[in-house]
């Protein structure tokens, strides 16, 4: 019996077939839960639709022109940017500071690391409710502590000027632990020999070592933290929902809360979709710029 000869082409074909078979489950999941909704949102942005009725009215770019001409949208966009500016640098620096502080600490290392990481694990809505208590005007512990120093009670969440700051404080508390873990991983990946070389070469002083050695070698972690926290920040919703409902007077209304409100409270699904598309473009642009500014993924 002679064995059937199979051409090179056959094997090439069959191996790429196997690759496709392996990829299929992941592609199916991504298609259904990521690609399809994305295009659906893009599509819905051109319609007026209440989210329930069978009929959808094609309105072209009306949703987009509408939002760009409304002053409300621009103030919401500004709120999102302000929220990002308040939370991202602070949680970046705090995460880095915690990581540097706990990097070589032997005492209570794991206890402290866990303590700072707990906020990340807690549900945002639950944590938001706890912070509402903490920020409470009459009985909150923060005003209670301030009163010990004879400071008058502050209306943390009820004041237009302070509500955004208060929500940001809670968000920083919530995300700093995550950044700390990323930075710790980055720090532990720096070989000890670089610091020993410094020591032998007489380059002493923690600031010098941080500036010339640690910070440059920590760059992959820094880029990751910067990019992810910006994305998280623009995507924030739960803490606003739990703490302020966008108030007072819309002072904490940010994009995702606006999308939810328009889509699921006012049933303006088309308009909400248009805002979602704007958010997507915004996040992609900011992420792209961040990558460019930090010199891309590799270039060490």
């Amino acid at each position: 019996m002679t064995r059937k000869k199979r051409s090179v082409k056959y094997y090439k074909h069959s191996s790429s077939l196997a690759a496709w078979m392996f990829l299929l489950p992941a592609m199916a999941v991504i298609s259904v839960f990521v690609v399809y909704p994305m295009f659906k949102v893009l599509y819905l942005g051109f319609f007026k639709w209440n989210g329930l009725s069978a009929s959808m009215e094609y309105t072209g770019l009306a949703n987009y022109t509408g939002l760009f001409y409304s002053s409300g949208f621009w103030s919401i966009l500004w709120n999102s940017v302000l929220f990002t500016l308040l939370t991202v640098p602070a949680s970046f620096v705090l995460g880095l500071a915690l990581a540097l502080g706990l990097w070589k600490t032997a005492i209570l290392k794991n206890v402290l690391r866990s303590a700072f990481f707990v906020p990340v694990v807690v549900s945002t809505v639950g944590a938001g409710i706890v912070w509402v208590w903490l920020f409470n005007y009459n009985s909150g512990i923060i005003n209670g502590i301030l009163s010990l120093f004879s400071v008058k009670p502050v209306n943390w969440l009820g004041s237009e000027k302070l509500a955004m700051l208060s929500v940001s404080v809670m968000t920083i508390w919530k995300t700093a632990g995550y950044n700390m873990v990323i930075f710790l991983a980055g720090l532990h990946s720096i070989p000890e020999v670089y610091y020993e070389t410094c020591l032998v070469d007489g380059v002493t002083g923690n600031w010098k070592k941080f500036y010339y050695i640690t910070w440059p070698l920590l760059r992959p972690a820094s880029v990751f933290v910067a990019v992810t926290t910006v994305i998280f920040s623009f995507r924030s919703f739960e803490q606003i929902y739990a703490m302020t409902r966008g108030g007072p007077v819309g002072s904490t209304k940010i994009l995702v809360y606006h999308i939810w409100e328009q889509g699921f409270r006012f049933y303006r699904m088309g308009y909400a979709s248009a805002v979602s598309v704007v958010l997507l473009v915004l996040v992609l642009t900011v992420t792209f710029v961040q990558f460019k500014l930090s010199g891309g993924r590799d270039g060490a």
Partner: protein
Amino acid sequence: MPDIVLKNLDKTFDSGFKAVNDLTLDINDSEFVVLLGPSGCGKTTLLRMIAGLEKASSGSILINGEDMTGSAPVERGVAMVFQNYGLYPHMTVYDNMAFALRHGKNKTPEDVIKKDIEEISFICKIHGQLDKKPAALSGGQQQRVALARALVRKPGILLLDEPLSNLDAGLRQHMRVEIVNIQKQLGTTVIYVTHDQAEAMTMAGRIAVIKDGELQQYAAPLEIYNMPGNEFVATFIGSPGMNIFNAGVFDNLPESLKPDTGSGCRVGIRPEHFIINSGGLDKDKFIFINGVAVEAMEALGHEYILYAAKGADKFTVRLGGKTNIKNDSRIDLAASINDVRAF
């Protein structure tokens, strides 16, 4: 250039492991000393203690007669090349070399730095690589950069921790010669850690053989080879190492070779010091070991390695040139009394 004296050095780690045990060593000005020993013998720990990266548990380190036991590395005037080089990946070769000069204890002006780097990079043959980052260099080039970075500081003492272990055999042999040449050119006192006896034999002015944190012997390479101080040194140095026998194996061991321990004495003979005894040898100048079984043979072209046995003693014999000895035959061997060591 400074001299170094180590006095009764001890190092016990927190885990209780004793890495260095009562070690005393003196290193002369401009000397090239190799610390040689098997893995885990404490030689790297000892080097790190000299550098000031590990604290001595007890004992003292004197550099140029000054007690430096507790001093910071920079005060000791040492430079070090680490096993994995420790080149900063985010800096160019030039910046790597300039780093200590720019940010170290004594700030050097940029124009002096430039001149020094040019000079040293020529000596180390990396002058074409100054603008590259370490990742763009081959292993051998990285090794040279690490050496150049240490040398550009003009250190009195250069410490090298297995600097050639990451290179392939050909490059290793080449770099051995280069490092010795550079050392001679600059007159630096060098302490070089290795487990490779070929490196030690070819590079060292003196070799310190270390085992289990203790100094076994400290002497010039050929003295270590020909007059090993104890059985460990005898078997560790040489490839294959020295053969160790119970004295009873020999038919005519002279009294002069028997130490006070008497019949329990052990005798060492290097594989290449055996000759075939075909009669006519002077009984007073040679010792005889007759009726040796040849168990296996390796022909290496320029020499033969015989795996031989007499009674319970197994040993190796190295014979140069041609031979007609066959496997499983019996031969009579002899060795000059001058080449026999007793332990």
